[in-house]
């Protein structure tokens, strides 16, 4: 068999292994120790010892509640903002403007966004400086617990800032799929005001299309580690952060309790998802009558106003936060109530350039390799589906959301334990594989639509002109899908750049990237250098997108010139 055909043949199975393998193996790696079984550490008597120890951890109940509330509240607020805004403003100029602002925001890694927000809202942050002392009267930063607040509200705000762009772009794609325009025209012609019409005619068809992404948001928000480390409460921290702490504890017997904690995190996420699912049932039941009640308006102006305010706030918070990073990275000494730094300097960047070498190289290397592997696997899988639509294996599709829904801290921890048991050296190779698990789903989601939409007649034509399936793929399919492929690669690269947990856990600290450095420095370090790292981290994905947009135009021109 030719290499490509062989690849096409096996890639669905490889995808399945890549997606489900680490998750299931990782879960197995925590379930056994959680119940006392880990012979390498002397655990050979199964029992509930680890759970007893876990239940005695001070503040455990609050950790669980914080994680649960964070998962549900973050998602509810983000979804409300997005749907109110889309309902009230679709097709307006404001909508297009927001669309342009939110897309780049999506590529900003979670950690950078969280750092930007921290610099903005902390008691000594940008906002406080801008309103002091003329408005607030503060000569010193107020003694307020805003960042790292006990109930994690600033952490949830940080998550909302990132989840709104995500849900917004997912919704945009779904709107086209469910013919929202036609539905709205119909509803409007029947006399429904935009809001009332949208929630009756569009939302019920739209929601099933975005349900899985919403679940992914719930899962992420209930188990986020990087945002939790930067903005979350500290005593006690959210459960996911606590689990990471227990995992890193020098006392090896803590591994049993840490496993139990990781398993508890899975239960908490499943709990959050279940509560949400029950909520869905409830809303469906209650709204059945409302949908056909015939009410033509529902305080339209008020609700669409709320949607606009929510979206604008998200954009403004993120934008001014990023601006804050930029200011800090060039700031000299900046005493508190001053609105701007007293001095400007390049020394921060001079130092950063020296420190950024390894982290940048590692981030780029891991990102490029993981993205390349993902694109190859996804292309093979999609080509397999295109060639044999009957046999197209649907199994990988079901596994697609597995890594996005099972809490990463749980299964990655299990993988670390397996890695140690098998004597595999932590390093770049394991980190690349870890990234692959998270990059691949996004590459698939980004590429599959274009692949499916490509007119099948192109390939039929190429085949009747004498091209073998492989030649048709290389000479027709690939060149014609070059732009979507590059976009998918840029998405994959952005996802890889943002990964914190797989890098620190599977690399055992040996593989440093801009992301791990930014998070590590965040806890206390010099704001200027943190700002420089966070900015670099935020800019890297943008470089990927710029390449993805610029390359096709360049390639196009070159092909034309070379081929007669």
């Amino acid at each position, binding site marked *: 068999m030719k290499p490509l055909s062989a690849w096409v043949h096996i890639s669905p199975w490889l995808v399945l292994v890549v997606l489900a393998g680490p998750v299931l193996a990782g879960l197995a790696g925590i379930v056994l120790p959680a119940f006392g079984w880990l012979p390498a550490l002397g655990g050979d008597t199964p029992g509930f010892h680890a759970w007893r120890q876990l239940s005695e951890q001070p503040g455990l109940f609050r950790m669980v509640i914080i994680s649960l509330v964070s998962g549900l509240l973050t998602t509810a607020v983000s979804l409300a903002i997005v749907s109110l805004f889309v309902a009230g403003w679709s097709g307006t100029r404001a909508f297009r403007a927001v669309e342009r602002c939110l897309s780049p925001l999506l590529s900003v890694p979670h950690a950078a966004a969280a750092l930007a927000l921290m610099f903005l809202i902390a008691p000594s942050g940008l906002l406080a400086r801008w309103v002091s002392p003329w408005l607030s009267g503060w000569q010193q930063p107020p003694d307020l617990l805003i960042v790292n607040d006990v109930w994690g509200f600033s952490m949830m705000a940080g998550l909302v800032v990132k989840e709104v762009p995500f849900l917004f772009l997912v919704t945009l794609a779904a709107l086209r799929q469910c013919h929202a325009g036609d539905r709205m025209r119909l509803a409007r012609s029947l006399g429904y005001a935009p809001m009332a019409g949208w929630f009756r005619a569009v939302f019920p068809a739209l929601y099933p299309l975005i349900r899985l992404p919403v679940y992914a948001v719930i899962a992420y928000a209930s188990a986020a580690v990087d945002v939790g480390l930067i903005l979350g409460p500290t005593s006690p921290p959210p459960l996911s952060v606590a689990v990471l702490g227990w995992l890193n504890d020098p006392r090896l017997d803590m591994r049993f309790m840490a496993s139990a904690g990781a398993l508890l995190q899975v239960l908490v996420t499943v709990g959050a998802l279940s509560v949400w699912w029950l909520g869905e049932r409830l809303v469906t039941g209650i709204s059945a009558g409302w949908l056909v009640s015939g009410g033509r308006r529902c305080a339209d102006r008020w609700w669409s106003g709320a949607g606009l305010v929510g979206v604008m706030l998200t954009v403004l918070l993120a934008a001014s936060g990023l601006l804050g990073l930029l200011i800090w990275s060039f700031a000299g000494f900046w005493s508190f109530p001053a609105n701007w730094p007293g001095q400007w300097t390049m020394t921060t960047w001079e130092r950063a350039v020296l420190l950024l070498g390894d982290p940048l190289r590692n981030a780029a290397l891991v990102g490029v390799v993981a993205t390349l592997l993902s694109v190859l696997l996804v292309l093979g899988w999609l080509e397999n589906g295109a060639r044999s639509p009957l046999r197209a294996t649907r199994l990988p599709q079901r596994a697609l959301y597995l890594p996005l829904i099972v809490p990463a801290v749980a299964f990655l921890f299990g993988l670390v334990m397996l890695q140690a048991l098998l004597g595999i050296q932590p390093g770049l190779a394991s980190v690349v594989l870890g990234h692959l698990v998270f990059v691949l789903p996004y590459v698939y989601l980004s590429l599959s639509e274009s692949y499916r939409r490509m*007119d099948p*007649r192109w390939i039929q034509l190429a*085949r*009747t002109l004498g*091209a073998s399936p492989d030649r048709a793929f290389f000479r027709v399919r690939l*060149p014609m899908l070059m732009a979507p492929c590059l976009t998918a690669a840029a998405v994959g690269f952005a996802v890889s750049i943002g990964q914190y947990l797989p890098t620190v856990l599977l690399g055992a600290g040996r593989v440093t990237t801009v992301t791990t450095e930014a998070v590590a420095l965040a806890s206390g370090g010099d704001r200027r250098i943190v700002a420089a790292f966070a900015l670099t981290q935020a800019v890297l994905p943008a470089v990927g997108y710029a390449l993805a947009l610029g390359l096709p135009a360049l390639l196009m021109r070159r092909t034309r010139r070379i081929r007669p």
Partner: protein
Amino acid sequence: MKGLKLDHLQIALNDTVLLRLDARVRPGEVLAVMGPSGSGKSTLLSCIAGTLDPVFRTGGCVQLDGRDLDGLPPEQRQVGLLFQDALLFPHLSVAGNVLFGVPRHHADRREKVEALLRDAGLEGFGPRGPQTLSGGQKARVALLRTLAAEPRAILLDEPFSSLDATLRGEMRQYVFDRIRRAGVPALLVTHDREDAIASGGHIVEL
């Protein structure tokens, strides 16, 4: 035996028979198949070209120049396909599109392309991008590309329906002339009676 032979061909989907056809087309001849949309015309062409979705079940057999086509992949059938849209590959130049069709064992592939273009009155169009051509020019290049592959039969899927009325007659003339000159059997599916009549061959109604 030369030509295209459809021997009790039958196409079915979920136990529903979509069409039955028994026909023979000699080299240089055009058989016109007519029917309203949804009657399975395009399915028929896919079946002959070998690109039929496997959800369809087929019976009977298709023979080309005495060779049974059943089970052969499309690229080995030597059956050319011409669609309603020209479908010129946007990433290749005009010459590149035609070159794509020329079999690889040919010695002077580029010269052959030049000759084909010259013959079609498209001399000097080679390096241009397909987007720069008019509708009629695109249709001609698409035909050249199909002919360049040296097919033993040509299938035409509503090839003129996207052209405006004046161009249409001209293109019909050109396409049928070239097919006759090439001396290959052709099968035309259309819902336009004028197309069918202009083909000058037998007409089958589905």
